[in-house]
């Protein structure tokens, strides 16, 4: 397969396949979870479900009193998540993809800013991995899924950086590899812990709701 | 872009340029310093620099014109102009169709091409000798 054929494939059939698997996978898991339903609690509610749920979303999202390992995880986590959102959603060529698929568009950031944020995000990703490897408890609890999810998230950042700066290979190949790495991420997304992107607020709300119903703090 | 009314289109430099003017002038400055210190000449090929429309005109305006203007007729006309900075020359080569085939800034006491060349002097001497024979 020539360089051009590769690029055409990832922009064509590759993207179709990845999107279908991604959409089917995420909706399958979401609805599977929703179908589990909630056990009916016949006790009288002592507080508000909704208030408890919403408050727990907030409290579980930001721990200002965290120290040590938790503080490290939280800070690094916020940095690379924000970095991911910025590099994915505020880079002009990416916005074009969303515009093509969903018909909506929004302003972009200058490429110099995106470039710097990409580097910061990549460094933070490695910092996060280092923490996982060095902390004995986290290392003990880590499975293949944890490392794999980290890897498929890092790959588009690195390949995107190389494609933008045209380093190492001819430009069409670099672009094709970058798009392929995104398609890999999309394909494995629903079957790894990355699904947290769609389930985390649901999970936090539910935890809070259970306690809120009982009138206790969660 | 502006239509000057004479059927000629003059491009005006926009606010955003590729910013070649300042770096180029710096290079010329360093070249002049080198020329004074060691006698080393510097040549800059203007065609190797990507310039936005109107930028080249700005550079020409900055360099201005000095005391010397020479025209060479060999394989078409060439203009050798000293800019307002002595030692900084503009050498523009044209073919016989008046199309530009080379554009250089030379930082030197005198561009090599203005000097009479030894081979041509030999040739001239032989011709003169024949005439006087």
């Amino acid at each position, binding site marked *: 397969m020539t360089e051009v054929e590769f690029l055409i494939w990832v922009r*064509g059939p590759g993207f179709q396949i990845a999107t279908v698997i991604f959409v089917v996978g995420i909706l399958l898991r979401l609805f599977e979870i929703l179908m589990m339903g909630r056990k009916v609690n016949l006790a009288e509610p002592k507080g508000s479900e909704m208030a408890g749920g919403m408050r727990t979303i907030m409290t579980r999202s930001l721990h200002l009193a965290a120290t040590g390992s938790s503080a490290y995880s939280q800070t690094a986590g916020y940095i690379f998540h924000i970095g991911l959102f910025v590099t994915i959603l505020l880079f*002009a060529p990416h916005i074009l993809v969303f515009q093509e*698929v969903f018909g909506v568009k929004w302003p972009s950031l200058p490429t110099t800013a995106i470039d710097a944020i990409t580097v910061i995000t990549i460094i933070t990703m490695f910092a996060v991995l280092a923490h996982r490897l060095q902390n004995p408890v986290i290392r003990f609890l880590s499975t293949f899924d944890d490392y794999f999810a980290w890897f498929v998230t890092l790959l588009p950042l690195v390949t995107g950086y190389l494609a933008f700066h045209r380093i190492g290979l001819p430009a069409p190949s670099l672009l094709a590899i970058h798009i392929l790495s995104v398609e890999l991420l999309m394909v494995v997304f629903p079957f790894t812990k990355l699904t947290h992107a769609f389930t985390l607020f649901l999970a936090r709300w539910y935890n809070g709701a259970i306690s809120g119903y009982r009138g206790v703090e969660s | 872009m502006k239509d000057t009314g004479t059927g000629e289109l003059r491009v005006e430099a926009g606010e955003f340029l590729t910013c070649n003017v300042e770096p180029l002038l710096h290079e010329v400055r360093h070249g002049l310093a080198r020329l004074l210190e060691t006698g080393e000449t510097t040549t800059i090929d203007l065609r190797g620099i990507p310039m936005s429309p109107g930028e080249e005109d700005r550079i020409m305006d900055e360099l201005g014109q000095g005391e010397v203007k020479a025209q060479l007729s060999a394989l078409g006309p*060439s203009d050798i102009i000293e800019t307002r900075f002595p030692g900084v020359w503009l050498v523009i080569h044209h073919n016989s169709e008046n199309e530009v085939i080379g554009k250089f800034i030379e930082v030197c006491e005198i561009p090599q091409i203005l000097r009479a060349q030894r081979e041509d002097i030999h040739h001239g001497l032989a011709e003169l000798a024949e005439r006087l024979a």
Partner: protein
Amino acid sequence: MSNENEKTLGEVLRLQGITRRGFLKFCAATTSLMALPPAMVSRVAEALENARRPSVIWLSFQECTGCTESLTRSHSPTIEGLIFNAISLDYHHTLQAASGTAAEEARKQAMQDNYGKYILVVDGSIPQANPQYSTIAGVSNLDMLEETAKGAAAIVAVGSCASFGGIPHAHPNPTGAVAVSDIIKDKPIINVSGCPPIPVVISGVLAQYLTFGSIPELDELHRPLAFYGKAIHDRCYRRPFYDKGLFAESFDDEGAKKGWCLYKLGCKGPTTYNACATTKWNEGTSFPIESGHPCLGCSQPDFWDGGGFYKALSIPTENITRNIIYASAAGIAAGVAVGVMNKAKKARANKSHQKTTIDDLKK
């Protein structure tokens, strides 16, 4: 013919009445043409002085003649013209005066006289589906190429058709068009791609061979690095607009009028390697982007099939909306189905009073 080629280029030019000054001007322009630094002029002068006139045979196959047109846009003595005087163009069936058997005889004679030393220039692709699709004097392109390549010192494939197959090679490629490099494997080939290539690039490559008697440094697609080493995007004067996020959204909007970046209009600058942004066209007048049109990527292989000239590089080439709708429906249905199955499984487990084990908790 043969004793003319014994003279050096310096001698040939002096015989044409060109002074040393004229020669120096020629060298300065040639050095600039080859994208070499001006400091190399004296080396170029020395090399050209002592160079011998190489014989050049130019074969045109499945082409539109655009490459020859591009090269011959200038008339009387120009650098391109001088280079053609400096070489001995022994065969070019668009430009030559002779035709028919006389022309073919001239070609065979030139090949014989200069065996192992002549340069073969090719423009146009070669049809493989049926060699009879393109013939010259009854000889198929394939046969003529193979025969002429045997005694060539090097082959210059001019234009995207000869370099990569070009427009005849575009889907569905009815003639089975292929590039020169798909057929000739045992000779050095220089691909001077572009549709057409910039004239000074063609001359520059010939000048390089003339001056140094060697092949310039090539990239992985066998194109001279001096002209194809940088992407258009890296030398484009509109790059500051791209970096600032200022794009033209359509061909006649405010952004287009202000000269903003053409990425959204499908510009292939980021994935195209050529000298258009620096060397430009028509003796440095302009190039497509400067004229307001996105780069087509014409010096890259298969640019005709590259996903559409007006579709930005980052956009998927096929329509995705319908598939997303179907996938959503399928996903929801599957999720609900699995959920129902899970509920049934749980009900069965409850009914048969199955104990919860550690394995269930690990799921």
